[in-house]
């Protein structure tokens, strides 16, 4: 292990032993799940590298940025606008929430029947194994579901830099006003943190940077329409996950590079699976690193995932922000409009999401939809029933899977997924 990293982790207050064991589990899982895939695009080498350095080089970069006076803001949700952070000379990073860690500690703060994602965010804090969280100058907790909202009250006792962002629950004028006001408040808080006043120029530039990053992922998504699919769902998910960690400009460049390669592949009809492989749209809860369980089960059961209707996926990056505003006020409006379209299940009603699932099924020529609900994530598991009904009404097969980060149910989930794939094939 690189000595420089070890002292960096030590300075961040990580529990080195626990962190080592986390990295070794993560490394092995990555090897088993990603590196065993056949015919991967060469451009994935970049993402392999990023993942191998996700707690190393990337943290070093953040620490170097901090030395130069830049601030780091950690977030758990796609409702936290990266544009505002960047415009005030701060870096926004996603915080770890994709694996069970220090669960016995977590249950001193949270009830057992809390969703795995929330528990995980506490586990990474209590186990002292998330260098992103420890390097953050501000942690943003957003009022999405009740679970997160109440959990942040307890998280507040564990960290001294938690900022709570309120969010609307209805797509009404009042809801939009609330979001706009909250973004203004967030803007002031970020400006105070960095000591940098946001200008129309800096905000325009930030909007362009984030738009470029999202556009690159749009381009990647569109290439997945091809049959055979030029990239596995696991690799595409990985790109969507790295979106939350990486340097924005470098990420955009790397995704575009892989897209160039995929275009060549498509022209040669070269795929990661044979033509006519059953195509699955994955829809539902977000999948944070290293939550690869369900996609791994699906893609080792003879299907290929062609789209993610998820915050770590198309729901998170679907819309771009209008960059034509000339004043901070106009740009803040544009940012609000952009984020207000996110069809998260905390909204009621949330019909847009249903339309998006149907649209995505058509666009990516999916043969069926697997709805992924995290156990105890009420917004998404509640929506899974109307989603299933609506899809059945359109003769689109749908399988609802409710699971968590544990491995005990892999056998049963695999049976369901395999049976669903057989059903689609028949």
């Amino acid at each position, binding site marked *: 292990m690189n000595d420089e990293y070890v002292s960096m982790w030590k300075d961040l207050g990580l529990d080195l032993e626990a962190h080592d064991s986390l990295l070794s589990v993560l490394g092995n899982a990555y090897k088993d799940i990603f590196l065993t895939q056949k015919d991967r695009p060469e451009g994935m080498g970049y993402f392999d590298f990023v993942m191998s350095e996700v707690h190393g080089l990337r943290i070093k970069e953040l620490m170097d940025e901090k030395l130069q006076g830049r601030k780091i803001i950690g977030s758990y949700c796609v409702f936290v606008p990266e544009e505002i952070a960047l415009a005030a000379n701060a870096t926004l990073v996603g915080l770890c929430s994709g694996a069970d860690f220090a669960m016995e500690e977590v249950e001193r703060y949270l009830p057992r029947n809390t969703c795995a994602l929330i528990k995980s965010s506490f586990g990474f804090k209590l186990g002292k194994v998330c260098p992103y969280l420890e390097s953050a100058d501000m942690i943003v907790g957003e009022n999405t579901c009740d679970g997160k909202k109440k959990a942040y009250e307890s998280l507040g006792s564990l960290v001294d830099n938690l900022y709570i962002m309120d969010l609307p629950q209805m797509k009404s004028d009042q809801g939009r006003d609330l979001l706009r006001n909250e973004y203004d408040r967030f803007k002031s808080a970020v400006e105070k943190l960095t000591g940098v006043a946001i200008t129309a120029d800096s905000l325009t530039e930030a909007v362009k940077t984030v738009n470029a990053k999202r556009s690159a992922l749009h381009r990647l998504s569109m290439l997945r329409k091809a049959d055979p699919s030029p990239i596995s769902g696991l690799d595409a998910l990985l790109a969507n996950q790295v979106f939350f960690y990486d340097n924005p400009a470098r990420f955009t460049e790397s995704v575009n590079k892989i897209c160039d390669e995929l275009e060549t592949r498509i022209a040669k009809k070269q795929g990661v699976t044979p033509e006519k492989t059953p195509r699955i749209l994955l829809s539902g809860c977000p999948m944070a690193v290293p939550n690869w369980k369900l996609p791994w089960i699906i893609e080792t059961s003879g299907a290929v995932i062609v789209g993610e209707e998820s915050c770590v996926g198309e729901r998170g990056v679907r819309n771009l922000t209008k960059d034509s505003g000339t004043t901070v006020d106009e740009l803040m409006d544009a940012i609000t409009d952009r984020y207000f379209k996110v069809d998260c299940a905390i909204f009621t009603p949330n019909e847009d999401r249903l339309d998006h699932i149907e649209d995505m099924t058509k666009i990516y020529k999916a043969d069926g939809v697997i709805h992924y609900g995290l156990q105890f994530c009420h917004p998404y598991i509640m929506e899974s029933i109307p989603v299933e009904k609506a899809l*059945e009404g359109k003769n689109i097969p749908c399988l609802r899977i*409710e699971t968590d980060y544990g491995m*005990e*149910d892999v*056998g*049963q989930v*695999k*049976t*369901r997924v*395999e*049976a669903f794939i*057989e*059903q689609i094939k*028949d």
Partner: protein
Amino acid sequence: MKYAGIDIGSRTIELVVLEGGRIIESRQADTGFDPITEAKKILAGVAYDGIMATGYGRNLFEIVFDDSKTVTEIKAHAKGVRAFFRDAGTILDIGGQDSKAIALNENGRVQKFEMNDRCAAGTGKFIEIMAKNLGFSIDEFGPAALEATKDLSINSMCTVFAESEVTSLIAKGADRKEIARGLHLSVVKRAIGMINRVSSNGPIVFSGGVAKNPCIRELIAQTLGRQILVHQNPQMIGALGAAMILEEEGT
């Protein structure tokens, strides 16, 4: 050509060999704690040209036995059931550790299915444990429950909680047969939930070991007002279906 189907369940293993569409061999054994050794035993001396495995042990089987294929229990049951019940539209399969309801379209293809969650609630294992707690053998359990004159409600679905509920009912002096009926009812409620989620009318073909239990059969038929059809050997359906699928593929 001889086509074999093997269903490696959590409690039992079944083997069926087909030749020219006819069953020429049919065997059953307990799974025990080492499914592969038991599978090897059951296959000893059996001749076949190709084999397809189903059940929870199918993937393990595929690793150990070269050139074997696998299919899920769901598709295997859909196939096997149609051999005896040509127009079957709904299947309920309750095995040792899982239960499922399957709706078929008019061509016999799987249209929709539901499976129980990760625990043993509402499965054969639950019935087995409860029978033992009440001092019944598995074969006596269903008929005894049918003799109860009163419905007694068991609220816990969980095997562990239901056990303590049963213990406290025994302590209160409740009738053993009534408790048995209450336990059957709790399994039936769960099964009905799954059936209703996949299909709403027509006869139900019941397979798996629990289909042998007359009380479960009667309670489902009564509650849903639907006909229950059971093959004389409902545990063979999965293995038969696997063999039929293989024969169709013409390995």
